[in-house]
């Protein structure tokens, strides 16, 4: 039985959803794709009067297999490393035309931390009114899970496999936010698909702020991280609750806000759910050492951003997404 038969008005219902649908159904992301969820949330909060420049990556591939497109926004994909520059050109054009349409640039961590970084830095330096959104899934997923500058320390990828001589990625995850902060742009923040209200707030704040603004959205990849598709949000939440992915906001490079962690969870709770960290649970001394290393990184984040909540905040890792009956999150 097709959905139409079950609900004869499904198409009408879809057309009357009380939110803007920037990313439509029928896209070809994997089950439980964190990036698809993130892109959906970002475009819903930012749209509809926006244009998007999208770097090469899963997001581009799974949304636009011609003749279909899942986008309901003017959208352009050019190449891997130039999303920020294409967006800058769009912004320059719109500015010159005197139009108010805003420009977003979408890129994965590869298109942000690595190949797209130069264009991103240039765009920010020149002060374009562009919201650059990095969908951070911590590796090159489109090409089949290779390490990127964003891959966390010790994570397994196909180019950082664990073996007798190595324990996954040898290097640290690049502190992109600090680099972004050094550009002293008006607003930069990290967000997570596990905290959609917080994410939406940050998108809106970025849009309201204007100028070059930056958002790094932690977007789990069930395939690349090796977790069940239904755990996408749970895994993302644990990344925040352990301190491994701090949710922070910066204005002109100064820290202005964090999502405090009410109950700090041990990093093992987060890592255990993911195959990419499987080798850290082998029980040998190397595994123990790397587990401790990641715990120390989390501890350092918590200390650096003063993430430990007092337990009284309403808006913390436990309270930020409290639901209630009929609670229209997108009202």
């Amino acid at each position, binding site marked *: 039985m097709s959905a139409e038969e079950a609900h004869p008005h499904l198409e009408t219902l879809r057309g009357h959803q009380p939110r803007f649908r920037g990313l439509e159904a*029928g896209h070809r992301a994997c089950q439980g794709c964190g990036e698809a969820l993130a892109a959906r949330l970002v475009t819903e909060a930012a749209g509809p009067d926006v244009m998007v420049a999208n770097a090469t990556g899963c997001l581009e591939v799974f949304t636009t297999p011609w003749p279909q497109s899942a986008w309901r926004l003017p959208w352009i994909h050019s190449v891997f490393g130039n999303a920020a520059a294409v967006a800058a050109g769009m912004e320059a054009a719109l500015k010159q035309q005197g139009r108010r349409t805003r420009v977003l640039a979408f890129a994965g961590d590869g298109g942000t931390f690595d190949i797209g970084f130069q264009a991103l830095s240039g765009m920010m330096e020149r002060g374009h009114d562009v919201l650059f959104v990095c969908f951070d899934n911590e590796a090159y997923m489109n090409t089949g899970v290779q390490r990127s500058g964003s891959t966390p320390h010790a994570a397994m990828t196909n180019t950082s496999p664990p073996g007798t001589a190595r324990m996954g990625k040898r290097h640290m995850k690049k502190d992109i936010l600090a680099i972004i902060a050094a550009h002293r742009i008006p607003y930069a923040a990290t967000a997570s698909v596990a905290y959609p209200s917080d994410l939406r707030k940050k998108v809106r704040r970025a849009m309201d702020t204007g100028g070059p603004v930056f958002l790094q959205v932690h977007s789990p990849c069930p395939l690349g991280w090796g977790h069940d598709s239904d755990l996408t949000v749970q895994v993302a939440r644990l990344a925040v609750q352990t301190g491994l992915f701090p949710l922070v906001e910066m204005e002109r490079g100064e820290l202005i806000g964090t999502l405090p962690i009410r109950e700090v969870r041990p990093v093992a709770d987060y890592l255990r759910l993911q195959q990419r960290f499987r080798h850290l649970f082998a029980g040998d001394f190397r595994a123990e050492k790397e587990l401790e290393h990641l715990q120390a990184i989390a501890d350092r984040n918590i200390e650096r951003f003063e993430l430990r909540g007092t337990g009284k905040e309403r808006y913390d890792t436990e309270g930020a997404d409290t639901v209630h009956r009929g609670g229209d999150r997108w009202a």
Partner: protein
Amino acid sequence: MTQIPPGAFAQPGTSLEFRTGSWRVQRPVHRHRAAPCHAACPAGEDAQAYLARVEVGDLQGAWETLVSANPLPAITGRVCPHPCETACNRGQYDEAIGIHAVERFLGDEALRREWPYPVAAPAADAPRVAVVGAGPAGLAAAYHLLRGGCRVTLVEALAAAGGTVRTAIPRYRLPLDTLEVETARLLALPGLDFHPHTQLGRDVSLEELRSEHAALFLAPGRRKGREWNADFAIPGDLHTGLHLLETWVAEGTLPDHPGAVAIVGGGNTAVDLSRVLRRQGVPSVHLVTHQRIPAPGVPAEDAMRANPREVAQAVEEGVTIHEHRGVRRLILRGERVVGMELVHMKKLPDADGRLQRVAFEGTETVLHVDHVIPAIGQEVDPAGFEALVERGRIPVDPWWGRVQGQTHLFAGGDARGDHGSVSEAVGDGRRAALGILAVLAGEALEAPVPPEPVPFSDLNLHYFEPAPAAREPVLPPQERRGLEEVEGGLDLHGVRHEAHRCLSCGECLACDNCWTLCPDQAVLKTRERAADGSHYVFDYDYCKGCGICARECPTGYIRMES
């Protein structure tokens, strides 16, 4: 044929042509499942349903939802031990919802505002059903029979309706006014003929009732104190607990003024009596029970059957409770009790898995008292229906309450002998009424499968914030002297707070989580409730079956099914 435009651009939203639903191996479905409060309520109340209405401010609707199961909420809100709260999943999170307070509030509001019961006058040719006993079971049965379109003849041996609620519950728990008004509103319903002072076997016979009515419901209660069949000597001045309690409720005094009393039993009678004795000035009141004080984490079968709040108040009032204890023997000086020997005791499963009391040798202690009062239960007074009674109770089929070997004769309430609370009696009356209606309609009676409550582990608690329960005002122990009600009620604010705390187990909260977190835009929101009771529709043409909606559903309302 789709032609390739210059640069191979694509039109917006055309991905809808691609049905990703074919990728799915499991599908999310909305499964309304019973909340633990609902599953645990002997009266069949769906507390979650009326809490939901309270939260949105629909108080009368909430009361109507409530009285669709239980017509006596002002009474049960005060006297029921509320197993719903023991079962409440929120109890494992922070504190159970104060359902009793909400129930009581709605009951009182209905009395104050005179909300009419949702019952229409029966048709002229409506079948007539007799109900014996106007206690909670009889009143509930009469009410549900009226709702089902019957006329009801309600006979009561005493002068007024209420049964045990009237005779054995102290007024400080249930003010007389509440009892009078709520029962009077029921008795005034159209189609109900109430006959007080009419005792079965004396004023009217079973056969007479049978000949004049299409069906019968017997709820005579258990008014005869059970004999203490302990294998030790019995003191000459033994009074049963119920007798003493009824005396105090009726006359406001007790025959003796002893210095130290031990009450044996863990039910409401025992606890009420212990508190009455304290109010009478007995300095040392002991309560001996083989169970434990009800508390979170104490399994239901090991907890005293009395209302947990009453137990707590008894302790506040100076009653000493000896948990997990049984009486090994009484210590007599002649016929006079001077003390008793207690032993540690617990119910444990035997070889057949049935729970049996086990005493642990070598744990004996002596308690010095000058009175022992057994409050271990009562029996049915079989006058007028002797043939139906076996070993002090009327054996019935457990769900509908139809008397064994009978077709149109049902029984319930304390007379069943397998339970004894007011809400259990209300439930008996309701189910028997539904059974009678089915029998009259020529339908076969089949016991429904009780709903499986949503376990705590199926909830996603990340989405809730801890919040302490609202507390009703309670009279300080030193001021609990007379008949003044010990517990006050919550105000509207408190009641709404409790409703807001409800986790909505197994029911759609309309919280938008599934709609917000679906990566595939496969959850659509509806303006009205969807056919399945949710506020959302799964678009299976696009749902890939990732399971995020089910995993993140706060209430366990979404399940993944193959």
